[in-house]
Structures are given as structure tokens and as C-alpha cells.
């Protein structure tokens, strides 16, 4: 395919033309699960595995999901520029990763349990039932891996670090997170070099020094 044709094909696809007008006019049949959409280029075993995983039961219990959602939004809250982790669908992504890579299940489930037992002993309530102030108070104890903490909190620090990594990874690979960072690539273009004003800003140039 020539570059020109590729550009054309891409622009058509980006208009969402996959569904033609006739099909679009027919209402969706009610109460059916949406068809699982897989990435192209899957090997047979991958396609089967993905279809099964996507249709499988959620890993988190409703109570765990609530805790994950609260923690996610503490780590990545909404601000002036973008939304929060839960608004970017991060809890569902983490749930999928638990099913996709089961080695994370025990640290995750156990860590959530650790958090709840610690909150019960400190505040008399499960993490999700604590007040916002209590939740932040708890998080403050475990959010800084460089700080020395009492020996009954080190596992909590490890858990929160893991949770932070999952939340960051989920948020910044979502559309919302990518827009927040300002990544503007992944589109056909012509690379002409660093913009002139940026070269100037850094005192660099493309001219070879005279040898």
C-alpha cells in the first residue's frame, strides 16, 4: 500500500465508518453482551485466551472494587487538566490485569485485606467506610517508600507502591491520561526535525560545526 493510500484508509477509519448507515439504523438487540473486540493479529491461542478472559468473572469483590476505586482516585484525582483514575476506567483495567497475570492476585487481595485490618484497628472501620480524613491519614503512612516507617507498616508501603504503579500504568495508557501528558503522535505525519523555537530554546542547531 502506498503512503497516500494508507493516509486515506486511516482517515476513513478514524471517522468511525466501520458501521455503515444501514446497520447503524437497526437498534441493538436488547440484553446481549457486546461482542468482544480483539486486537488484530492475534494468534489462535491468544484470541481464545483473550475472549475467555474478557468474558470471565471479575476478580474484585464489590467491596474490594470500592476500595480500589477510592485508592485509585486518591493516587490520581481529577484536577484542572484531567479526570481521575476511576473516570479513566482504571479499576476495570486493574481487574483485568489480575485475571491476565494471576501472580499479582495474592499481593493485591492480601494488600487490600491488610489495609482493611489496619484501618479497623486504627479507626474502627474498613478503609472504604473510614472518613476521607482517616483515609488520607492512612495513605500518608504508606505512600512514601523512602521514609522510615514503623515495622508494622512496611508491607503497607510495598502494597501502596504496587497500587500506585498499577494506577499510573492504567491512567496514562487511557485516552484521558495520554491527553493529559500531551502525547500527540501515533498518527501519519512527516518528521521534519525539532521545531525551530525548541532548537532555539535549547541552544541547538542542525548545522554541523565547521570541521
Amino acid at each position, binding site marked *: 500500500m502506498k*503512503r497516500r493510500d494508507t493516509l486515506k484508509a486511516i482517515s476513513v477509519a478514524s471517522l468511525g465508518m466501520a458501521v455503515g448507515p444501514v446497520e447503524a439504523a437497526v437498534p441493538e438487540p436488547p440484553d446481549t453482551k457486546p461482542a468482544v473486540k480483539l*486486537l488484530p*493479529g492475534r*494468534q489462535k491461542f491468544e484470541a481464545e485466551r483473550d475472549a475467555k478472559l474478557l468474558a470471565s468473572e471479575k476478580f474484585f469483590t464489590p467491596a474490594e472494587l470500592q476500595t480500589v476505586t477510592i485508592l485509585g482516585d486518591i493516587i490520581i*484525582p481529577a484536577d484542572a487538566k484531567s479526570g481521575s483514575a476511576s473516570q479513566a476506567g482504571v479499576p476495570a483495567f486493574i481487574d483485568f490485569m489480575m485475571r491476565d497475570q494471576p501472580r499479582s492476585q495474592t499481593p493485591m487481595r492480601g494488600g487490600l485485606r491488610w489495609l482493611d485490618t489496619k484501618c479497623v484497628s486504627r479507626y474502627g472501620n474498613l478503609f472504604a467506610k473510614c472518613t476521607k480524613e482517616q483515609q488520607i491519614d492512612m495513605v500518608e503512612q504508606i505512600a512514601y*517508600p523512602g521514609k522510615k516507617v514503623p515495622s508494622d507498616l512496611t508491607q503497607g508501603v510495598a502494597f501502596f*507502591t504496587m497500587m500506585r504503579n498499577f494506577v499510573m500504568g492504567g491512567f496514562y*495508557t487511557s485516552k484521558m491520561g495520554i491527553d493529559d501528558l500531551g502525547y500527540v503522535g501515533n*498518527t501519519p505525519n512527516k518528521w521534519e526535525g525539532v*521545531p525551530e523555537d525548541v532548537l532555539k530554546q535549547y541552544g541547538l542547531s542542525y548545522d554541523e560545526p565547521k570541521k
Partner: protein
Amino acid sequence: MDLFQIKKAPTVYDAIVVGSGAGGGMAAYMLTKAGAKVLLLEAGGYFDPADPKYMTQLKWPYESPRRGASTTRAGGDFDAAWGGWEIEGEPYSSKPGGDFFWFRSRMLGGRTNHWGRISMRFGPDDFRRKTLSGIGDDWPITYDDMKPFYDRVDKLIGVFGSVENMHNEPDGHFLPPPKPRLHELMLKKAATGIGIPVIPSRLSILTQPINKERGQCFYCRQCNRGCSAYADFSSSSVLCIPAVKTGNLTLQNNAMVREVLTDAKTGLATGVSYVDTISMQEMSVYAKTVILGASTCESARLLLNSKSARFPNGLANSSGVVGKYLNDSTGASRSGFVPALMDRKRYNEDGVGGMHVFTPWWLDNSKLDFPRGYHIEYGGGMGMPGYGFGGGIENLNGKIPGRDGKMKPAGGYGAGLKDDMRRFYGAYVSMSGRGEPIPLESNYCEIDPNTVDKYGIPTLRFHYKWSDNEIKQAKHMQDTFEQIIEAMGGMPMGNKPGKEQNYGLAAPGRIIHEVGTVRMGNDPGKSALNKFQQAHDVKNLFVVDAAPFVTQGDKNVTWTILAASMRTSEYLIDQVKKKNI
């Protein structure tokens, strides 16, 4: 179905080519263009990067449920390699303390679908290291033998680069290189300032169109996903599919070759047997010539598994050398954070897949404590976020003053963390050394006496240990990386790997540049193939992947595989014309 009924094909082809990667693809292309009837056997499935059903190019991370994580493929969900270091049902083993990691791609085009497109010629010195240094071995051919073929590969396939007139980095017929990205300009300035050269990289990516069949690069940085415009080199799109279009190629996918068949009387190759991986049907197919391009270790495995009364040690192995001298590139890497790049202006700097500049080997080994060189590949910039993005932020954000100039504790959460991510985005650089090892007889693959794969084919067992030569080279890499990062005002990230970690030297096989198991040479007692990659013992048997290579230079070997396979193909055509085969 009777599994034990072996179907015999009635056709006798001019040639059977095993494997559709760089070497096999080139042989199939050259021979079919010359009018020969060729059967190309590929163990994996069909793949065409221009067919939307295979296309992951220009997909977003959120189009993968795992955001591109490497759960089922080593390079992640978007990577075009079907396979990896582990393939279900296709095991291999290593002797204790001699681990080797064997990467295989089971698909049309093999590993050329996801590689870095780094396309360097070997230099004149790379063919005669023994003569120059007293260690290792010379090739039976010289740069002058290869130069015309490198020239033709440049023109046929396309490569960008710059004319530098460096003795051991021969220039080619180059397309214009892309301009360096911002961090690459900074790297260049810093490295050059401390005497380390940085020049445009040499990648087989079309920055200009070269023919009507292939498009031009549209700068998405995703060559490893396969290019829908055929603007980079992969054997599937550039060699195999055009070979099919000649009408002379029969392509058989899902054909796992079991052994090379020989005639007990003449000792010549008559064809191969394979198992269809979908139907499990056993097949025998016949040809006047057999050409192996199954990959360095797979071709050795095939020969070692092709035992008969006449060839009790395996085929083409009267020397006993098959499997030995296995060698992979050395590899070590380091990354750095560059405060000057914080709070960058955003613009699209995807560029081509991989680096726009690199460092060729620049020192004289006679003045160093290790005998061979390495080149440096660079990474960095405002890339598309992928799985794991932002992970490990706690290792950085406690070391960088905030906007208010004050330090804050590492890790954290909330709006401040989000702000860190915006400030730090695109402010990293990475560098990887890729170096030449000394091939050793004691590094080898052999047939595991106890194990078979799911097709019942005996599997490989490896034994590979780095010597002090490679470990000292890795130490030099680490020192150099630190000097470059510091020269550009950056902070080296993580801990510098020391002696106990072999200075970060990657385990054998991890760099996926293995060569050497069916080496060529002039002495049939010490080599399996002659200087045309033709078996000393079996004149109608050839090997065209990197197995014949005596050494690998500090260059990535694909361009040399292509040139050598083209040379072997022409030799074969000539020999057939002269009725020698």
C-alpha cells in the same frame, strides 16, 4: 486419521527453502525471480502487515485489554513477533550454569517482522579478526567478496544513513536519514564533546519511495508492529510476498520441518519431511536442492536431527562442528534522567522506529583490556505511553526539586504526582551497548538426549557461558554510559551494575543476535560449509541464515544475512547452469 501415514508429494521442486526470515526469504526471492520452482516452508502462520486483520500499527494502548503488556508475547501485545523465548509445546533446555534463551518467531517473515531494522554492513576488519588480533577466527571470505551484494541489497531493500568514510563502518547506497530528535541532538553534543562519535543510524526504512510496490515512511515509530505501507524491511512484505507473485513460489505455512532427507547411495539431499502443525499430517517433499534458513539454532537442530547410516552425526557434520561456536551479541544498558528536558514543549517526535543516531565503535582494542568492540543505540523522547508507564516513579520524584524548588519525599499521590508526570514526560534517555563476543567452541547447542517437542522432534540443549572478554566489554559499556549521561547534565538512573551482576551483561540469547552454529570455512575438518555456505559433505545443501557466520562483528547481522543469502543464491544458480549441481 492415520498419523503414521506419511504423504509424499509428487512434485520435485528445483529447491526447497526452510524458513521465511531474512535468509530464507532472500533465497526464495532470488531463485523464483530467476525462474526456479521453489517450495518455501514456514513453521508459523501467514502474515502480511498490510492486511488489516494483522495490523496493530497505529493502535492505541487502550485498544489492548492489557494495555500492551507482554503476557502472551515477549514484545507486548502490539509487537509483530508471534512467539518469543517460550513457545508452548516447543521446549529447549540448558546445561546447569550454561543458560541460553532462544527467541523464535513462528510466522511468515520470522523475526524480521519485529526487529529494529538496524542495517549495518560488516567492515573489512570484521572478516579477519584473527589476523588482526590473534584471537578468534577469520572468515573464508572478505569484505570485497561481500561488497557487491551489500550494494545490491541496499538498492533492492533500501536503507538510510550517511556517508562517513569510516574504515570499518563501510558506507552504502543510503536514503536520507531522518533528522535527530531533541534528546538525540543533546546526546550527540554531549558525547562528541567527550570524544565519542554520534552519527545518523542506518536503518532499512524508506525515507523516500524506492519502487511502486512499497510506500514511504509516515513516521509512527512502530516498525516492530509491521508496516502497512511496506516502508520498512520485513522478509514477509519485501521478499516472500513478491516471490509468491512471480508464480514460481509455493508457500507452505504451518510446516514444521523434522529432518532433511538424503539418498543413501549418493549422499545428496532429496528433500525434507515436515509435520503440518494444524492437521498433524506428516509430509515428505522433494527437491533438487535444499536450502536451510530456519535460524541459527533451528538450522543446526535440523542438521543434527537428520541422522542416517551414512551421516551418523547428523547431516553436514563430518567435522563435528555443527552446533558449536554459538554466539549472541553482548548487551548492556542504562538510562538517565535529563533535568534540562523537564516541562518540554509538546510536539510529535515519533520519527522512525528506533533511534535516529547511534555510536559506532570508536576505540582501538589493542589499547583496552578486552578484544572486541561495541556500538551504542540510543532511546528516549516523548514516546507513546505503554504498559507500565509511570511505574517506579518513586525512584525518581524524590530526587528532583518541585516547582517551588523544594525537595519532597519519594512516591506520594495526588495532584502533585500528576504534576510530576507532566514535568518528567520525555525527559529520559536510554542507551544500549551491542558488542562482539569471541565465538567459543565451548558455547554450543546439541540435541537433548531426553526431550522432544509436541511434534516428537528432538529438542535442543544449550551450553553457553560468557568469558572475561565479554564481561570486561560490558564494564566498559557501563562506564561509557555514565560518562555520556553525566556529560549531558543527566542523572544515571538505578544502580550501576557491578562485578557481581557481570556489569549488566545480558544473558546469552537475550539480544536475539545469535550466529555461528553451522560455520563456514575453507577446512572441511573444521567447518560445515564452504565459502558459499554450501555443505562440504552434501553439495546440494546450503544454509542461508546466520548459522554460517564465523563472527558477528559489533554489527547487527541482518544485512549480512541478506547479502550472504543473495550471494549463495547466485552461486547456486550458476552451479546449476554449469551442471555442477
